[in-house]
């Protein structure tokens, strides 16, 4: 598995590659747009670029 190309890594600049999913417990999950959404989760944000999803996850704009 080569670095930087994983399902949760940023895709090409500007491409809407990811979603933010949520479950009923309030847990959130980043998710690649090309993979079927797992049972029990629904799309809360996106499809959007990775950075936009990351920003949507952190209201205070702190990112790691």
């Amino acid at each position, binding site marked *: *598995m*080569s*670095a930087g*190309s*994983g*399902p*949760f890594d940023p*895709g090409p600049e500007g491409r809407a*590659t990811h979603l*933010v*999913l949520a*479950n*009923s*417990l309030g*847990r*959130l*999950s*980043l*998710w*690649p*747009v*090309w*993979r*079927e*959404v*797992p*049972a*029990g*989760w629904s799309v809360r944000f996106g499809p959007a670029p990775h950075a936009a999803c*990351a920003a949507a*996850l*952190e209201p205070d704009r*702190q*990112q*790691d």
Partner: protein
Amino acid sequence: MTALLTDADGAGPEHRPDAPDAPAVELPLTAAQSGMWYAQSLDPPSPAQNTAECLEIDGPLDPELFAAALRRVTAEADALRVSVVDSPDGPRQRVLPSVALPLTTHDLRDASDAVRRAEEWMRADLAEPFDLTAGPLFRHALFRVGEERWLWYQRIHHLVMDGFGYSLLVRRTAQVYTALARGEAPGPRVFGTLADLVDEDAAYRSSEAFTADRTHWTEAFADRPEVPRLAGRGALPSRTFLRRTAHLGPETTEGVRELASRLRATWPDVLIAAQALYTSRATGHREVVLGLPMMGRMGSVSLRVPGMVMNVLPLRLDVSPDATFAELVRQVVLGIREVRRHQRFRYEDIRRDLRLLGENRGLVGPLVNVMPFDYAVDFAGAPARARNLSAGPVDDLTVNIYDRADGRGLRIDHDGNPALYADGELAAHQERFLNLVERLSGADPHVPTAAHGIATAAELELVLGTFNDTERALPPTTLIGPIESRAARTPEATALVYGDTSLTYEELNTRANRLARHLRTLGARPGAVVAVSVPRSVELVVSLLAVLKAGAAYLPLDPDYPEQRLAYMLRDAAPVCAVTDRAGRLPEDTGTPLVVLDGLDVSGYLWVNPSRPLTPAHPAYVIYTSGSTGRPKGVVVSHGAIDNRLRWMQSAYGLTSDDRVLQKTPSSFDVSVWEFFWPLRQGAVLVVAEPGGHRDPAYLARLIREQGVTTCHFVPSMLQVFLVEEEAKACGGLRRVFCSGEALPRETADAFGRELPGAELHNLYGPTEAAVDVTSHACAAEAAGPVPIGRPVWNTRLYVLDAALQPCPPGIPGELYLAGRQLAEGYLNRPGLTASRFVADPFGRPEERMYRTGDLAHWTAQGEAVYLGRTDDQVKLRGQRIELGEIETALTARDGVDAACALVREDRPGEQRLVGYITGGADPVAVRASLARELPEHLVPAAVVALEAFPLSPNGKLDRRALPAPVFSGGAGSRRPSNAREEALTRLFAQVLGADRVGPDDTFFDLGGTSLLAVRLVARVREEFGAELTIGSLFESPTPATLAARLGSSGPASEDALDVVLRLRGGDGRPPLFAIHPAGGIAWCYAGLSARLGPEQPVYGIQARGLVGDEALPRTLQEEASDYVRHIRAIQEHGPYRLLGWSVGGVLAHTVAVLLQEAGEQVELLALLDAFPAEQWRERPAPEEGDALTAVLRMAGFERTHERNREDVLGTLRRAGSPLAGLSDRALSKIVDIVPNHARMMREHHHRDYEGDLLFFTAAAPRAEDWLTREAWRAHVTGSIDNHDLDCTHPQLMQDRHLDDIAAVLAARLKELDA
């Protein structure tokens, strides 16, 4: 074998219609042939280059006519009449005008197993190598296996024939035979000559097309991509290959053809795309490079010549899970179109141009060999079907796909190099490939390929279900509850041992309860966080329990971490309070209320368990780990998660009250969680190691033996070091040892089995994010190969997923994801990071999450996971998790650093070191030093290297492989070793560090020293010097000079070490301690004391004048002391002063102290070591030279016995290896003068009064001079005498054992003065 029908021999000229009686023609080899010649010459007896085919002919056949047809074709095809000779100009092929026809014919009509016997024969023949120089390089056999059924076998060396060549030969043979059978003329020769082929090759190689092709390929592969292979590695081709044959069912074949036409492609394009998808997923590489065997025949000439022309060319494809299969097929179509245009440029030449040859790197992964040659031939009406038996050497894996026009659909042969693939693996690859093709052919090609995995349905059931069958119903308990129940059941049992202290369960519980109640008053409750920064001790255990009892989660803060790091964690986690052992431990400006245990009285609190509304969902602890963007992140683990982990551990290993568990892991690492709490839940004894003890294998071995430890943990690299420790063998009481934190090498597991045969070794695995460990594997004695991380623990599932988040079958590497009860809640205050690491689980129950570890793993067929490495930049160094990004961020933040990169290097096997690289003007030494002030020790690079610029690969990325190894070389501009001991130590340092040169003042850790190398160095020092030395002493005395000083009662032996001022330990933190020499005038004896006072306390020895040079000896002690006062004030201009002296040195120290006070300075410490005032000696006779020799011996720690003169004394010193023996004769003679001079001066001296207290150490063993009494000092001291008796003689006072005691008292006093 039955009767031979014909034994065809040489074809007569009458059979060769156009055979000229020409001499042999000599031709050079084509580029295509040269590589094969070279490969064959490397291994002449290898049959790997055999190619072979078998044609089944159904119908009547005349063997005589068949032989005649073969003779004719042989005469027409130059390539078959070739042998290859080596000449001074290189290998040349000699085309003979005629060769004997090597044909055997076998009549097997009567045999019941005719076909099998024929195939056996073929197999045996295929294993025979050709002799290139002798020729002929082909062979035929004709088997009659039925009345009207024949097998025609032909084997040809690949150097002279390729697959297309076969088709030319077969068609011509059929044509000639048919003509002969009908009594017709076969028609003229249709083949071109071999010379034509060679000419065409030469013409191409000097053409513009060749140059253009070369440019195309070097540009297309300028970045020299890594080539993914299904076996994960490469190997030389073997002499044989494995083959699995299968057919795509007619329905699937039809589906593939339909899909191809819908996508405006051919069926080979679809199968190549499928193989690319399979390879990408099976290797975890988004980009794959397949090898495509190409006909290579572009001109009309070569299309008519049977010979070796074919070429293998790389097809580079980007296989992304978000792209559709239709897009992938389109990529293949366009890619092949391009490859075809440049197909004459040789594979070997591309490799050479890309400089892959020298590195023995491949250009392509699996080959897909599509052979759509037309084999619709018949022999005078008897139809024939061809079957390939060998397509030549197999480097890696070749998928041969045949579409013989025989109506049977696509045949697929998987050929594998047996050096890389076992039979079963090859079969699995084939089965999955066929399965994938089947699914693709029936699926919508316009959805992302992520919808398709490579595992078969049976494999999916195995890896998702069977291997993860871990469900287990458990009571809803917490981490702390079971400990409290245990304390109630066995209150009198021993719970904890630390040094001489031992606590029962009741005592421990009571202390923790009282502290817990205190913490509650500060806001500790379920859901809150309480920081704990206490060195390993009883108090640490009490504090952790107290936090949990209060219901809060504990946040361990390593007291050794730099202040900045601690402050960050306090601000980030915002604990309600922080427990520390003493004031000053934690930064006070973070707003966190501190609970200082030192002096805290909690006796007023109730001793019973506090009640609290705690549930398994509440957090139990928060542990920080390295963060990739520079900020460490706090992992929040719930009670339910860790409770599951400990319940599993108890069921797996059954701890009892007989067990004693070692606690040595720092509390900031999560391994410590089970060390602390598992034994306390089970009624076992917790044996707590001293702070720092976890680094010292000798100490650990001793502790394990003395304390009867049965259970402990080692990081594998530390286990390795421990096992070579002499005392490890004596740790027979160990029942089980757990490893985790990094990959456990098989060699270490084997060594464990040898050294500790009575103990079990368990390999555990897990990130902090999943409650310590999630898998386990019990190491077995006879096992081989990598040690698996094992099977999942209770209520835990492992998923090995490919780039499309689809499960990988056993044996296929993928990223490891974890799911189940042990997952952490997430990262404290980091919702974004949490949501990108803890993601939706597509395989579990609805709404579940899985944690993405970033670790690579694969399943074994038995359901164990094997760790393979990382997907990202995170590294493990000696079990500690390091995000290289965090170090890079820290490096880049320094002034003068433009860019930075960090990596772990292993320049010498087994020695991993963290190295940082920087560009910009910053001084790398200063950068490293400033990092050390900010980052925990394990995150500080062993070296920082400054570069002009970072090396880049052709595509402009940082080329990590080209980064230079750091040169760990000290000694630049430093002094030379000043004695034999320093010399020896600089040598040992250099050896252990692998450094060119080490100076006596170079610091071990600045030269790339790691804690593991430290262990090795200490072992070497013990060996060479026979000295007892601990790891701790190296941390305190990290240079050869300081270590030399520490090693004995003395250190340097060169002249400069005999100066008046001898710096034993420098530094400017605290006021220095001045230690004045005893009678011999040398102060080296204080080195051991200096080392024991720690790195913070500067110590200067004061030595007598006259040891060097021809200075006159002082006449009075007063004069001598005044001289010393000048030297002391040159170092420390004003008081308060700290003075110490042993023997005569004590008398001098008192005198110096008085002089300083008289000069208006303050003296805050006067410590006398078995020194007695002048008047006690006055009436006693002064020593002569004989007594001086006694004094010299005493300086070295010996009592005088047989020594009569200077020579004898020197002999004794040399035999004992005393550093004093290294003194020059002149210096030694001086000592013999200095000793009586001091005796004289002392007797003449009159003490004045010292204003203050005296710290006194008495050598309390009975002595000859029984009239000596410290009470005599009362006349010269205004304050009190604080005496400490030591059970030793006067000379023994400076020996290690007693120095420990003296240093302890001194250190305590110095600490009071500092405060």
